[in-house]
Each structure stands twice: as C-alpha cells, then as structure tokens.
C-alpha cells in the first residue's frame, strides 16, 4: 500500500530479470503492472494511459538488441519514455533580451508559491543577479508579511503595498520599479487560487497581462494526486505556463504529479523544492528523476553530495585502511559524520540503486545515528582501535555509558567486524556483486 513507484517497478523488474525471453503476453502483463505502479505513485490516469500506450508503441517498433535481455530492453523503453515526458536535461529560466526578466509564480493554495518565490530570489541572488520580489498575494492574511520576512532573511528586496487591493496594480508598479531601479529579475508572487474559480483565474490572467512575464511558473505540490492533470490543464488554458516548480519533494511522495504536470503542459519542471531552508531549491534534473523513478538510483546526485561532504584525501586513506582491515571505530565515526553532512541517511539510501527495497523503515535509520555515536563514544581508545577486546563486562559498561542496551552494542560491534572482514575479502580479488551484511548490495562495478 505504501509502495513507491520505485519499489513497484523494482518488483516487476526483479521478476523480469529472473525470466527468459518475453512473449507478447508477458509484455502485456508488465505494462499492466507499470500502469498500476504509476497510478499508485499518483500519476493521473489519463497520463498513465498515454504513457503506457507510448511504451507499447516503442516496444512494438523497437529493434531487438542482441546485447540486451528483454527485461533490460523494457527498462530502457520505460526510461526513454519517462525522459520523453520529463525532458532529458535540466532547463534553466528563460533569458530576457532586456532586463528585468519577469517570473510569475502561480498555483493552488498551499502549493508553496511564497516560499518558492523567496527561494528563487535567493537562488538568483546567489548567481550574482539583483532580483526584486513583488507581493501580489493580497488575499491570504499576512502573506505580505511572510514575504517581507523571507526577503529580510535572504536579503532580497520585496515590493509590497499594504493597503493595496488590486494585484494588477501592485504588479505593474513593481515592474516599473524594477525597470527604473535596474533590477535584473522581478519575481511576482500571486495568491493561491482554485483552478475552477473563474474570477480568480481571470485575475491571474490580468496580472500576467500587466507584466508580460518571460516565465510563468506553475507551482505544484509533489504530493498532489489525480487532480494534478486538471490543475495543469486549467492553469495552462488561462496563462502561458512556461515551467513547473515541484515543491515538497523532500517528503516520501514520489514522481506522480511531476509526470502528470509535464505531460499535460508540455513544459519542463525547472526547479524542485527539497526542504524548509531557503537554500533548499535546486534545478530539477529530469534524467535523474527518471532514473530514480525506475529504481536505478540517483547516483549523480549522490556523487555530487558525497564530493562536497567527504574529504577526498581522507577518503583515499580510509579506503586503504579498509583494504587492510585497519579501519577503526574512530575512522568509522569520522566517516559517519561526513555522511551526515550529505543529509538524512534515509535520503542517501534512496539514491542508491535498488535501495528503495531496503527493509529499513525510512526515517528510522536516521534515529540510529545518535545511538551509534553514543555507543562508540562510550568506548575507550583501545576498544575503538581493537574492537575484538570488547567482551562481556566491557559491553555492559558501554551500554550503560551510552544509554543503550547490551544487545545494541553487540549488534554494532558484530556488524562492524563483519563489514570489515567482508571489505577485506572483496579487495582480495573476488569478483561478482558481493552482498554486505544487513542486506546492502554493492551496485555493479563498485567492488574494490
């Protein structure tokens, strides 16, 4: 029931991998499973139908690659179809021939327009630009204050008129100000509105008409369900949507709305909101998302984050130590700290290929970190260097000192030892895809 798209497709493809050649009936079955998987991931039914038809057409017309198994071939087709909808690479904002570049943020109530506007302002400022934000949400109580506070935090100026009642007027005056004051970008925050409310949709048209934006970004909550297709259609009919901002992507809802929105509007997702901090806005990488949906992991993002978090020289040394089984608990603690810099461990895990199937309860793994840290910090120097000496009374002491249980200490020490041994064996030259204890599998090509 809580299966993500990744897990569902993982299941299907695991079964495919274990089969020989596929006949037409099996292809049908796979497509049916893909249909269910997409629906469960909240891709709108209409989009699912079109998407599955697309995959089928590709399957029928596809050349048979001798080097691929039928399963791999279907994965490839699905991946290509996903890329076909989501786009293949990150798309930035349109370039304005003459500044200021005008960006209008539109969307339903609560989709995250104001936050996204502030984050976008900070993002542009970080690129050395001079953005101005116009507070044109005059409906929601305190929306103007919210934007002003966020502007203070990011150092991005906000044009707001407290007594104003007409968002069109505010937008026009903000544009005038942006022109005369030499701002490079104008971000227009608008009120949230239901796409079925014709008065408010007309108001949105009027606001965009007044500022002739280079970009009209539809802000969409990543948790949106089937209605995404209606929202995209209605907004698309009213204004010229040029791109999508997918917000709250840091939750565990995956993919669905992204696919629906891009499919219906034919416009790319340009940014993704990935956290509550004002720095948590990232250019959207559709290729990575497609891989992630397919359970192929998100290795690129993982590597990028890893390179920022880990010291390369240090990593080299650690690897050396691992090879020789000289890796100590102190080393482990250091590396764990670096890993923590990459964000929640559950997220890191999700980026690894095939890891969406891990039996680890999503966020729970993050709760273990402080416990593990406490256990290690309760060890003496010599215990950390030579874990083999940790026996009965030492274990009890460590458990007491760290506020954990002897079982937990046992488990940690044993796992540490197992992993150490395993890595040593692997570096001894045994090929294949060795299995780490705890069910973690090394992705192909990642042996030492």
């Amino acid at each position, binding site marked *: 029931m809580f299966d993500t798209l990744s897990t569902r497709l993982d299941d299907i493809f695991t079964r495919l991998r274990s089969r020989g050649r596929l006949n037409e009936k099996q292809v049908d079955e796979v497509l049916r499973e893909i249909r269910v998987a997409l629906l469960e991931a909240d891709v709108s039914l209409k989009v699912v139908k079109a998407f599955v038809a697309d995959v089928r057409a590709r399957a029928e017309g596809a050349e048979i690659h001798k080097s691929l198994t039928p399963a791999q071939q279907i994965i490839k087709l699905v991946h290509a179809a996903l890329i076909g909808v989501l786009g293949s690479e990150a798309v930035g904002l349109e370039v304005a021939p003459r500044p200021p570049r005008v960006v209008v943020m539109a969307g339903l109530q609560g989709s995250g327009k104001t936050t996204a506007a502030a984050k976008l302002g900070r993002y542009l400022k970080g690129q050395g630009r001079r953005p101005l934000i116009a507070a044109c949400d005059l409906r929601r109580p305190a929306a103007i204050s919210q934007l002003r506070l966020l502007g203070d935090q990011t150092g991005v100026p906000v044009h707001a008129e407290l007594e104003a009642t007409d968002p069109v007027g505010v937008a026009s005056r903000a544009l005038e100000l942006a022109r005369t004051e030499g701002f490079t970008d104008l971000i227009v925050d608008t009120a949230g509105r239901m796409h079925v409310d014709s008065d408010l949709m007309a108001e949105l048209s009027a606001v965009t008409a007044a500022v002739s934006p280079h970009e009209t970004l539809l802000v969409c909550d990543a948790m949106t369900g089937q*209605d995404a297709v209606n929202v995209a259609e209605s907004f698309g009919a009213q204004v010229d949507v040029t791109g999508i901002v997918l917000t709250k992507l840091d939750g565990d809802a995956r993919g669905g709305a992204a696919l629906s929105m891009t499919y219906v509007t034919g416009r790319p997702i340009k940014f993704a909101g990935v956290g509550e901090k004002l720095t948590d806005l990232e250019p959207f990488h559709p290729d990575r998302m497609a891989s992630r949906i397919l359970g192929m992991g998100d290795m690129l993002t993982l590597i990028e984050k890893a390179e920022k978090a880990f010291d390369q020289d240090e990593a080299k040394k650690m690897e050396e130590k691992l090879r020789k089984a000289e890796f100590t608990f102190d080393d482990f603690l250091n590396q764990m700290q670096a890993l923590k810099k990459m964000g929640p461990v559950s997220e890191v895990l999700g980026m690894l290929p095939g890891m969406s199937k891990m039996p680890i309860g999503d966020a729970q793994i993050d709760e273990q970190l402080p416990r593990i840290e406490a256990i290690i910090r309760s060890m003496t120097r010599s215990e950390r260097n030579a874990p083999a000496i940790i026996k009965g009374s030492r274990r009890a002491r460590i458990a007491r000192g760290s506020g954990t249980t002897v079982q937990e200490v046992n488990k940690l020490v044993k796992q540490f030892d197992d992993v150490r041994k395993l890595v040593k064996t692997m570096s001894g030259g045994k090929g294949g895809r060795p299995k780490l204890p705890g069910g973690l599998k090394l992705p192909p090509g990642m042996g030492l």
Partner: protein
Amino acid sequence: MDTQLLVIILVVLAVVASLSGLALGARDRRRSSEEQTSATPDPAQQRGPVAVQETQAQATTAATTPSVGRRPSLRDRLTKSRAFLSDRLSEVLGGGLDDDTWEDIEAALIQADIGVEAARRITEDLRAKARERRITHAEDLRGLVAEELVSLFDFERDRALAFAPEGVTVWLVVGVNGTGKTTTIGKLAKDLERRDKSVALAAADTFRAAADEQLAVWAERSGAHLIKHQPGADPGAVAYDAFAFARARSIDVLVVDTAGRLHTRVPLMDELGKVRRVIEKEGKVQEVLLVIDATAGQNGLVQAREFAAATGVTGVVLTKLDGSAKGGIALAIESTFDIPIKLIGIGESIDDLEPFDPKTYVDALLS
C-alpha cells in the same frame, strides 16, 4: 575516482543498518525517557517573551462575515467543475452493462484518489452485486454505486468534535505544509464564537514566517484570543502558556495551530508529540485534527499513519473540496486507519467549514 567514496558510504550504511532491527524498541525507549526527563518541568525556563494579544474585534467582524443566506451548498461546490460519475453514467445510460462500464467506474474511483486497490475492490463488489440483483441497465446502476460508496463509511460513528466535560477543551491541529491548518482554525474559531463559546488560539507555528500574523487576522475576524511568542520560540512553550492562559480566563476552547511539517522529518514529528505532552501535563487534549488537502494523492495515507503515530490523530479535516479534487484519500484514511473525517473545508471565507456527512458527500460526488 568516486568508488572510494561510494565504498565508504556503503560501509557506513551497512554498519548503521545493523541497529535498524532494533529501531522500534529504541524509539519507544527514547520517547519514554524523554517523558521522564521532562516530567519535572520548569515552565519559566521554557518560556519565551510572552505576548498575549487580546482581540475583541466586534468592529471588524461585521465587515468580514459574508451573509449566511447566499452560501452555495456542498453539492454546488463539489460539482462546480467536473462531475464524478454522472457524465460517465449518462454516457452509458440506456445501454447495457459491459466491461467498459465497469472500467469507467473503476477509472472514476481511481481519479477520485481512492487508490488503485480500493477502486478495484469496490468495482468488483459492485459487479458482484449487480449480477446478484440482476441489474443490467446503466440507469439502475447509479443507486447501487451510491449505496456502495455510502456503505464504506461507518454511520454509527460520532463525527462531532469532542469537548471537555469541564474546564478547557483543547484541539490540536496538525498536518503537512500547505494543507490549510491556519485557515481551518480561523473557521473553527468563528464557528465556536457563533455557538457562544469563548475561544483562544495558540500560535504554535513559530517556524513559518508570519504564521502568527496570519493567525492573528483570523483571531480578529472571529473575535478569539491569541497567544503567541517570538518567531522561532519553542512551540511546546507556546502551547503551555496558551493553556495556562485559557485556564486562568476560563476559556471554553483552546485551538493550537502547529507548523506544517513533512511526516518524514523525525525531529519535527517528535516536536509535535512534545507539544501534546506539554499540554497533557496540565490538562487534556480532546481532539488532534489532521488537516488533509483534498488534492493530496496516495501519500495522504502515509501522512495519516505517521501523524497518528506521533500525536494520536482523532479526526481528519478534509480541506479544499471546492476545487475539482474529490478527496478520496480521506475515505482511504478513514477505512484504513479508522480515523473519521470530521470536517470539510469548501472555500476561503470564514464560514466555509462544515461537518462531514457521508451521505451528502456521496450525493455530491454522484449528482
């Protein structure tokens, strides 16, 4: 190149994973130890600079309260844009039932965000019943569909909000970001005022910029008291002070607004548990209302599970039903976790909050 990094990451993960088998036990232990340590509270220490705003805004309420008479019904709102089944049913009206009919019904259920599995189950059920009762024409089907959908709800269930037998009634309002918690609270406050209850609102969303100001506007519109601290203050401390205030002033109902949080953020979910515990040291929480956006997809189920685990959710408020989304996920939540839908939000004005009635809801879906 990066293989070293990946190996190290995997090694660390492999070791970290070792404890996850104990995760549940560990979590419980931590919770209880936290309770023990915080059992000797020092409210003075927790307390930030307190600002108790009192707003008795008779002057403004007249201007902001729309006249009650011209309110469109739920049926109007729900059918504003897109009909649920009616189009499909009328398309096949007069014809016999075939596979397409059933596929259409299943599709309609899926599009209402009820969930693929549930949609299939319901359609199969309907199919069996139609066979049993020898329904062969589409026009006879409508009644059957209505009956089936209504039967998914428990009618005996009390969907009214609970009040304390005496003393201060406390309602805690929780949910992910952007579902409409603050707006719902504004509407709740207004409804309570209308029923001659005195109301205090606690601005325990100290995270989102200007959340307290937003709540202040609603407090003014409804004539409720507002208790707030500085931005960034401990939400538990706000709740504690608000409860003390409500008790001292013999306020009937205290409604606590909390910051929107994604259910995957463990520390934030723990914080929510703490808000509840802080209040329960002095009093009792009668309702924990989970606000679910009608546009939410299947992730709503995970939200419900996690919020229920963190704070013990007693009811669902289904908001934004005035759009084209049907809010089927709330039905899924009710039947999966036995958490009743209690209220629905059907618009932006202060009166657009109604008690949930399964029959009206299903009628509106099918009309």
